[in-house]
C-alpha cells in the first residue's frame, strides 16, 4: 500500500490524519517540521507527502517543497499542501522561480473524504 508522509507541527492534526489514512490502509510516516521531513524522506522515500506550510516558520513547508523539487530522488514525489493559511486562487501567466509547484492544496479544517479523494488523484497522476 502507498506510503504517505504527514508533515505538520500539530500533533493532534497528525493523529487525526493518521486515523483517516489508516482507514484506507495507507502506511503513515510523520514529521513535525521541514528539517525532520527531509531527513525522513531521504531515509525512507514516501509515495506522497501531505505538507503543512507554516511549521517552525511560515515558509518551512514551501522550503521543503522547493528542496524536494531540486533533489533528483525526491522530485517525483507528489505533494499536497495542507494549510490554514489564507490564500487567493488566481490565474497566472508565466510562473517564475518564486512559484512553488505542488500537486494540490487543501484547507484546514480538512474534510477527510475530500482529502482521500485528493490523495487518490495525486497518487494516480503521472509523476513529475
Amino acid at each position, binding site marked *: 500500500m502507498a506510503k504517505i508522509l504527514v508533515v505538520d507541527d500539530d500533533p493532534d492534526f497528525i493523529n487525526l490524519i493518521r486515523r483517516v489514512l489508516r482507514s484506507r490502509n495507507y502506511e503513515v510516516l510523520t514529521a513535525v517540521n521541514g528539517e525532520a521531513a527531509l531527513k525522513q524522506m531521504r531515509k525512507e522515500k514516501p509515495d506522497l507527502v501531505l505538507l503543512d*506550510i507554516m511549521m*517552525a516558520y*511560515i515558509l518551512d513547508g*514551501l*522550503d521543503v517543497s522547493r528542496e524536494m523539487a531540486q533533489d533528483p530522488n525526491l522530485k517525483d514525489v507528489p505533494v499536497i499542501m495542507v494549510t*490554514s493559511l489564507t*490564500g487567493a*486562487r488566481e490565474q497566472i501567466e508565466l510562473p517564475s522561480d518564486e512559484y512553488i*509547484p*505542488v500537486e494540490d492544496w487543501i484547507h484546514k479544517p480538512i474534510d477527510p473524504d475530500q482529502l482521500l479523494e485528493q490523495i487518490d488523484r495525486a497518487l494516480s497522476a503521472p509523476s513529475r
Partner: protein
Amino acid sequence: MTVQLKGKREAITIRWIPKYTFLERAGHWLHTATFVPLAITGMILFFPFLQPLAQGAAGQFIRMVHRIAAVLFGLIPIVYFIIQPRRLLMNIREFMFDKEDIGWVKNAFGYYVLGRHGVMPPQGRFNTGEKMNGLIMIVAWVILGLSGLIMWFAKGLVPTGLFQAMVIIHDVMMIISVCMLLVHLYLAIAHPLMWAGLVSMRFGVTSAEYAAEHHAKWYYGPKRAMELYEAQKRQAAGTEH
C-alpha cells in the same frame, strides 16, 4: 508567496498569515478590559490629588471595582493556560530574547521614532518591543497579583514592614505597567509602522508582506532571514559609499 498547482494555469497567493488564535485575542481584549478599570481605580487610590474621589460610598465602590477587576485580570492567563497549554508554551518560547534583540533596541529609536528606514535585525513572531511589553505584563501580573493578595487578605497577619513594602511595590509596578500601556496604545493606534499589530489583534492575521518585512525570522526562518539581513546591510553600506 505563491504556490502553483501543477498542470493548471492557477496559482495560490498567500496573503494572510495567522498570528493569534481566537482565544489569544479574546484573552488580550479581556485583559485590556480588566486592566483599564484596574489602572483607573488604582490611580484614584494612589495619587493624593485624586483621593477626594475615593472617600465614602464612592471610595467603597472604587475599591470593589478594583478587586473585581483584579480577580478577572488574574484569572484570564490561568484560563488560557488550562485551555491552550501547548500554545502558551509555544508563545513563551517565541518570547525568549536573543542577540538580534540587542541590535533591534540599538536601532529602534532611529527607525520607529526618527523615521530612519535603515536595516533592522530580523525578528521572530514577536519583535523586541512586543517581547519587552509581554515581559513587563508578565512581571506585572505576578507582582501586582502577589502584592495585591497580601494587601487584600494579609493585613495584620504579616509584619507591618512587609505589608508596607507590598504597598510600595504594588504602586511602583502600577506606575510601570500604566506607562507601558500608554506606549503600547500609542504604537498600536497611532504609529504608522505598527498598524499591522492592531489588525492581527483584531482579526488574528497579519499580511504576508508585513510578516516578511517586520518578522523575517518567523517568515523566512532564521537561516534565510540572516542571509537576507546580511545582504541588505552590504547593500546599504554600498549605497552609503
